């Protein structure tokens, strides 16, 4: 393959990954999956019934792996000559649509099931919450799955990059990867920043404050859409950049260099990122710390 073509493919995959990461994170924020889910799940038990979507489809990595593996599996069935021979883009779009339908089914059952299991804490099953949120969940899941199945296709197709793994397995691995990155990067913005923004830096969290976060938004009772609005300003794009960088840098080093040089370049990238992250952390501690001095026990 010509170097320019290779770099173009790497850039396309990086772009698709950026969109996928952003969309995946917003999807999990609307549904309060993973990091914030324990707060949402506990809220009713500590006396705060709420109108937040409680989407517990395992952790984010397995659920995204499911959407992507199913999307790629369906697309691959359509690609086999005996079934349909349309453009791969149409086939990937149909695969992602099936994955989005699965997302809708699993989201619905987890919202209804979990809220019905908390009846004794006065937690209602609100059908308007379900109807309002499910379609936006499915929409975001569709975008994320489409982009990841597309980048897996570019990686797998023999005339393009030609990875030896089968197509659905590559999609499964990238689905796990985007879920893990969304869970560790973007959800922190929702799970930590959004929920506890009125607490002092480094002050820790009193257990009695758990669940408080599900109640009031900027105006009225907090809904999952408020969380998507908040997270789309930082958490979603940050996840997109993180996942896009993983896909882009990893494929860039193996496309631009070969053999051991690629390994050394990978090590250099990891070292540079470790040092950069450490710098940011110490900067933040100096800027916003030190923690307030311990002022003794507080009377209950």
């Amino acid at each position: 393959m010509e170097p320019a073509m290779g770099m173009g493919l790497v850039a396309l995959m990086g772009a698709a990954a950026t969109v996928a990461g952003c969309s995946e994170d917003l999807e999990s924020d609307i549904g309060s999956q993973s990091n914030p889910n324990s707060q949402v799940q506990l809220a009713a038990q500590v006396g705060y019934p709420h109108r937040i979507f409680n989407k517990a489809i395992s952790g984010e990595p397995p659920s995204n792996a499911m959407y992507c593996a199913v999307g790629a599996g369906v697309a691959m069935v359509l690609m086999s000559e005996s079934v349909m021979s349309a453009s791969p883009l149409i086939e990937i779009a149909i695969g992602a649509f099936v994955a989005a339908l699965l997302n809708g089914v699993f989201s619905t059952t987890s919202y209804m099931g979990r809220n019905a299991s908390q009846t004794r804490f006065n937690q209602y099953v609100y059908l308007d919450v379900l109807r309002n949120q499910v379609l936006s969940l499915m929409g975001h899941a569709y975008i994320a799955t489409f982009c990841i199945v597309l980048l897996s296709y570019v990686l797998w197709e023999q005339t393009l990059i030609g990875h030896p793994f089968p197509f659905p397995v590559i999609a499964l691995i990238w689905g796990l990867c985007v879920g893990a990155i969304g869970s560790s990067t973007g959800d922190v913005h929702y799970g930590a920043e959004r929920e506890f923004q009125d607490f002092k830096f480094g002050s820790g969290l009193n257990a009695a404050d758990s669940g408080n976060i599900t109640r009031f938004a900027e105006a009225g009772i907090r809904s999952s859409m408020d969380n998507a609005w908040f997270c789309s300003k930082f958490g979603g794009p940050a996840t997109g950049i993180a996942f896009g960088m993983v896909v882009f840098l990893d494929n860039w080093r193996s496309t631009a260099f070969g053999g051991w040089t690629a390994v050394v370049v990978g090590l250099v990238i990891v070292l540079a990122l470790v040092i950069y992250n450490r710098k940011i952390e110490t900067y933040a501690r100096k800027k916003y710390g030190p923690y307030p001095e311990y002022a003794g026990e507080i009377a209950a």
Partner: protein
Amino acid sequence: MSASTETANQIDTKGIVVGLVGIYIAGIAASAEIPYLAFLAGIGAVFATKMGADAVRRVCSYGIGTGVPSIGMLALGMGIISAMFGLALGKMYNAVFIGPIVGLVIALAIGFVVGTLANKIIKLNIPVMERCLMEIAGAGVLVLTGLSVMIAGSMDFVVITEKVIATGYIAPVFILGALGILHPFNASLGPDETQDRTLIHAYSCGAIGMTIAGVCSIAVLDPIAGIISIVIGLAIWYVTFMGFVRLVKRDAGAGYVGTGLLPPGAM
């Protein structure tokens, strides 16, 4: 938690018997050039999913909250190793029909060892741990073998390797099997969880796996057999999903509302 309406022994018997019978009828019929019965392996997988989901429900009621997804992955992890070992052994001894049973036995053994390690070495001290992990591993192997036989239309290790693993259809089978086992209890987590609601949900998750495996079998096995599997899978899914919604209505009682503010007294 409400009392069990179905005992563990009943669920295990149904799961193992229906699972194995389904796999065998589908496998034997396909080798006799009748691929249209492949959906029976999927029905076996649905019952095996229910068995796994009930085991997850019992072991996770001991307070394993965030461990529910992990235990589903563990199930299919143990399941895929045992399933492939069983099928490969059947091929080695030129007796492909012993494959699923050998796989099941190996899975039960692995489950027992893992359960003993968790209980005795890590000292989790959960009384039902060994038994539940055996059931989960058994469910994993039956789901995986069932859906693989349904896609490939054969119990031959070489055919399954070529048509399910090398093509990559093992990826959706693996992850849908795992989610089918872990999702029913995970989605009903809470003090008012009821067994019948969790188990009907397990049927519906198993039916989703069956439907997607049916889609994969269109390209691999036979288009008509695939469409039969899809239609039956969707029918099971629709009936059980509506049943799940009905039980949610029953369990939520007056809390099942179209819209409204927070409950009185909650503000």
